[in-house]
């Protein structure tokens, strides 16, 4: 198999002892991906052998597949006075059907285990037998705020499986949609954190900016969450020259308001006090538990799947990869702030070259085996993997590993020993979603 940014190595365990993290294991166990952080490449291993630690990682990714279960990062804490209380699955602080098992003896959180699986709809089972276009309707509704990264990775995987080329213009649409959605998500996370810190004016302004990002998506794709946006020639799309000028104007406005707001927010001592040294994730834990996205990058690891994206828009544009060292909620905030700027810059480049985006077709990436494609993509909360089998135009199987699944163990670790009032600052800074986890 030859594919840019990917290296297939011999069966068993990937060679060497450098920094790497597990990125995906297929449900059949016949194939695994590791991120090689030294060579910045994806390692593909057939018939992989997992260490005990890696099996624990995999167990957490798969938690909740047959009803509610907890994500666990070690032995449970027991002892005199220690009690467990469940938070959720109906709680405004979570705002989703999901929860936490909290072990405590009072003020401090001894241990916290995310409780996932409440929202399991069984999407990947349900799409078997459907056409790729039909299945995309289900896949994008797994998690609304991340719809476009899922739809794009799913489509890339299915195209690779079927050996079907993609119109170059569609690649531009996918990149544009994903960057807009990244901006929305980062703004939303920042707004939630400002709310948690009772920075009411700032939170209101960030929420207003998040709404203007949704409106930009709505104006561009006819849908505020981008459902259906990636259907080739979708009727709701508005991407002609005047529409692009309008989008540029919206984003310029958003960008300048965001700059002023970012300065004020990060100049606020009360806000910084709450997020600095809160929810710290070490580089070691981040790699060991397979963290992805802003969570990983805020803990010093420069992995961004857009760099390895083989498709034209990302390959030909400057993708700024942002890292921070401290690994705390503040570091994740700083990464997200830079990434809003980065996405605005990417969209600017993309719209600039839009008229030159060829009317040609791009070959799909090489299939993993006949009829089976694997694609990766960088969603707002981190990289995701889709593994899709297609034959005779129908889906035969779909499996995935989502950013939220990968990051729950770090949410859990970041809250060990924290006081209850830190909960929101840590939890919100990861941008983890129960909907995306459960599928």
């Amino acid at each position, binding site marked *: 198999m030859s594919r840019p940014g990917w290296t297939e190595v011999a069966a068993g365990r990937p060679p060497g002892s450098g920094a790497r993290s597990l990125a995906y294991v297929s449900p059949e166990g016949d194939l695994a991906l590791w991120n090689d952080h030294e060579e910045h490449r994806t390692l593909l291993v057939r018939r992989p052998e997992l260490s005990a630690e890696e099996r624990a990682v995999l167990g957490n990714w798969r938690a909740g597949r047959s*009803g509610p279960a907890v994500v666990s990062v070690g032995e449970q804490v027991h002892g005199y006075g220690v009690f467990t209380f469940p938070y959720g699955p109906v709680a*405004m602080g979570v*705002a989703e059907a999901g929860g936490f098992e909290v072990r405590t003896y009072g003020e401090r959180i001894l241990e916290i285990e995310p409780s996932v699986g409440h929202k399991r709809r069984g999407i990947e089972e349900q799409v078997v037998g459907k056409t790729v276009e039909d299945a995309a309707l289900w896949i994008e509704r797994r998690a609304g705020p991340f*719809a476009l990264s899922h739809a794009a990775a799913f489509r890339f995987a299915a195209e690779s499986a079927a050996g079907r080329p993609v119109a170059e213009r569609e690649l531009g649409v996918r990149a544009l949609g994903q960057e807009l959605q990244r901006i929305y998500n980062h703004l939303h996370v920042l707004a939630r954190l400002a709310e948690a810190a009772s920075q009411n004016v700032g939170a*209101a302004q960030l929420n207003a900016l998040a709404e203007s990002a949704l409106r930009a998506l709505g*104006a561009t794709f*006819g849908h505020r*969450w981008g459902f259906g946006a990636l259907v080739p020639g979708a009727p*709701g799309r508005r991407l002609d020259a005047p529409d692009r000028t309008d989008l540029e104007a919206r984003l310029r406005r958003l960008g300048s308001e965001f700059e002023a707001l970012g300065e004020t927010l990060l*100049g606020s001592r009360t806000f910084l006090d709450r997020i600095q040294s809160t929810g710290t994730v070490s580089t070691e834990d981040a790699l060991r538990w397979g963290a992805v996205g802003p969570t990983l990058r805020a803990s010093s690891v420069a992995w961004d799947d857009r760099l390895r994206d083989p498709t034209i828009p990302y390959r030909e544009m400057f993708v700024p990869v942002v890292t921070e060292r401290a690994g705390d909620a503040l570091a994740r905030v700083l990464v997200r702030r830079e990434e809003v700027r980065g996405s605005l810059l990417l969209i600017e480049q993309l719209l600039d070259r839009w008229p030159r985006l060829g009317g040609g077709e791009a070959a799909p990436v090489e299939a993993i085996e006949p009829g089976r494609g694997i694609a990766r993509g960088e969603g707002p909360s981190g990289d995701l993997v889709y593994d899709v089998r297609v034959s005779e135009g129908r889906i035969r199987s779909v499996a995935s590993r989502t950013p939220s699944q990968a990051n729950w163990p770090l949410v859990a670790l970041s809250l060990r020993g924290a006081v209850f009032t830190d909960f929101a600052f840590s939890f919100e800074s990861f941008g983890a979603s129960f909907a995306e986890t459960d599928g």
Partner: protein
Amino acid sequence: MVKSWLGQAAAIGILTTEFPRRPADPEELPAAARAPGAGPVALASLPPEVRAACPTGAISLTEIDQGKCVRCARCLPAGLVPAPDASANLGSRAGLRWPDGRPPGGTGPAPLAELGPSLHVFLVDVGSCQGCNLEVMGLANPYYDLHRLGMFFTNSPRHADVLVVVGVPTAAMVEPLRRTFEAMPAPKAVLAVGACAIDGGIFAEAPGRAAAVGEIVPVDLYVAGCPPAPVAILEGILALGRRRSRGPAP
């Protein structure tokens, strides 16, 4: 610090919508958030492929079921046209079935004066994609500012007048939903928001779907869409407020 926040707020100016004093505009209600209805072509004469392509079976020869529709827009190029109005997304379960693809009766935007005392809203998610949750919570942002209408989100069902339900109920969420409803003091009303909460939407046949929301708690009003736009949800809450100020629902 406070000065600079307020300075920025002043520079940005007023964002808040005039809705519901005036109808929603395309900014607030993009095409895919509106109800598809019959255009020049009668339902019965639509090409059969249009019905076959509908992922939820919302289009029959005689009606469009807005409750099932996920607003995927596949049927639009074939002659169906999006309704102009946010209130086209509201109705009882039966009221969302549009004979011949036309709304059965108008529920126009509400005059503010009719709204009852302040309303407290509690959101419960029973298996959503988060799209509906975020559109509901978005009502608090300065563009919609539901506080100006005397409505507030509350953190506890014990303080809630209106229960907003989103998502397709999974087995794990049936009991939590029932208990949340029971914890609310009377009088109370339930608003089911989004295709998932109405009739399962895209997940009507999903292996994880356990029931319809209406089988678990009594639903007063449905807001169609996938997700419905915030203005449509706002209409829904306003409509419940009006009903409450007049006494129990008929």
